[in-house]
């Protein structure tokens, strides 16, 4: 976030008699200042995105955004997050999905069936992002190769948390077509992930530990 740091340096602050900050507090304050800056620069935008995805709630977009920032605050360090704004959005969107009962139930059920209760695939933290980065890059590349329609169906399904029926209602496409397109899209994405140089995604996920606790 060098760009933001620069932005704040540009500001002429009128400070008088400010006590010197002790070195030990400096890092902590720096992190706090950083999250604060992130908050100021992204809160409204994040709320707009959440409203677009999940409506006016409950939970209200502002509450979800707030929770996402609390999560950022609770991280020991944010230095190793490559793109804090993007991380913030993924955390908030995940919280939004968790607020949809159907999705929450599906996630819990799948985790249980895979005998990995507690290893929440839905838990997002910086180390998981770091470990999965090769696969994520491959997915990003493959997303760009999907047809417009496939892409939109993946996005609506994965991030809006919409069912076929809901997607059909909004777009006018048939449920059967949506189902077919989604499966075709997943096939393309899967091929991209397995074609990359890294290890299979499943291996990566299994090897991970829950971080943050």
């Amino acid at each position, binding site marked *: 976030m060098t760009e933001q740091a620069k932005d704040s340096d540009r*500001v002429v602050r009128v400070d008088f008699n400010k006590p010197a900050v002790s070195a030990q507090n400096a890092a902590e304050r720096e992190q706090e200042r950083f999250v604060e800056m992130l908050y100021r620069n992204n809160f409204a*935008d994040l709320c707009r995105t959440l409203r677009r995805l999940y409506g006016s709630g409950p939970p209200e977009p502002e509450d979800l955004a707030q929770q996402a920032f609390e999560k950022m605050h609770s991280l020991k360090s944010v230095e190793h997050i490559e793109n804090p704004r993007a991380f913030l959005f993924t955390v908030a969107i995940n919280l939004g999905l968790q607020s949809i009962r159907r999705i929450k139930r599906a996630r819990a059920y*799948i985790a249980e069936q895979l005998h990995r209760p507690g290893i929440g695939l839905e838990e997002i933290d910086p180390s998981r992002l770091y470990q*999965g980065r090769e696969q994520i890059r491959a997915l990003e590349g493959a997303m760009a190769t999907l047809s417009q329609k496939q892409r939109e169906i993946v*996005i609506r399904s994965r991030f809006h948390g919409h069912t*076929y029926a809901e997607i059909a209602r*909004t777009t*006018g496409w048939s449920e059967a077509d949506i189902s077919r397109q989604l499966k075709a899209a997943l096939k393309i994405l*899967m091929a991209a992930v*397995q074609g990359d140089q890294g290890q299979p995604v499943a291996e990566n996920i299994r090897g991970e530990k829950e971080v943050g606790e």
Partner: protein
Amino acid sequence: MTQGHTPPGKDDEASEAARAWITIFYSGEPSDDDRARFVKWLNANPENKEAFARANALWSNLGLSNLVAEWVNEPVTTRPVVSSRFNEMWRGPIGAIAAVAALVLLATPFFWPMIQPHQPERSMADVGKILPSVESQSYMSGIGELKTVTLNDGTRIFLAASSAVEIVYSASVRRIKLLRGSAFFEVAHEKDRPLLVDAGASEVMVLGTTFGVRVGPNDIQVTVSSGRVSIAKDRGDKVDSHQTIVTIDAGKHVVADLQGEILSVSEADFEVTLAWLQGQLTYDGATLADVVADINRYRAKRLEIADPALSQLKVTASFRVDQADRFLASLPSAYPVSIRELPNQTRIEAQPR
């Protein structure tokens, strides 16, 4: 690449079934019967379980991309809303024509906004908010009031407090004058009818985009959050006279002086310039004069800067619009000023040192 789980290039039955299950769980509404079949399938052999874990991990990892925020904000396909009245019409003699028209619209969503205002169901739904189509009309918001106006072309205007706009739509051009204050525009795309926003001596021309405009005491500011706009000096009412000085893309912030000369083009800091949409006033190195002008739009008792030298004081602050008094109270601790309350106004004075 893969290490023995799935041979390269081979997309086996197990993988295909696994993907189908993923879509059933996340995008469908699985029945108890589905669950029973799933458990049986999953535990039938290790390959199935492995394939399902892989597909599930893929679905999960999609949510970790740095591009998620961009993906979810991409333009989407929207189906026309069909009212019961429209349904009746559908069955009538003109049903056949309407059906053809609807198919064309679905196939080419791009043209949908152009035709939308003429759809009967829409004027039924929004009749209270919609303007007559070729007329001048003004809207203003009071002190402390945020107002949203929806125009008949689908364009929405979010007015900050104490702001005013005048709207003149004709067949060839949509013109909105920002008389004072700030407004955020969500412009409905019309290929053949540009929308012009006049602010001070500047003119902003767009086809369809979202952006904010602010008329300040010393300058005009434009922040573009999506699409692209062009800015010119305001030379009158003709679109032809729009002589672009600068074209700015999403993510940019432009400052022009009151004569319409461009002073700067920089990266937009949306949450500073558009924070008021959330009822928040946020400043990063803004002048005290700007902050005071904004506060006055939300505060009944007038706020004045007593000493002109203070006007250019740089302020970094963020507060809710209804907490301007708290901000004022804290001002003397951070800046060399004092606050004096008079019966009809509040004055910010230079602090005697």
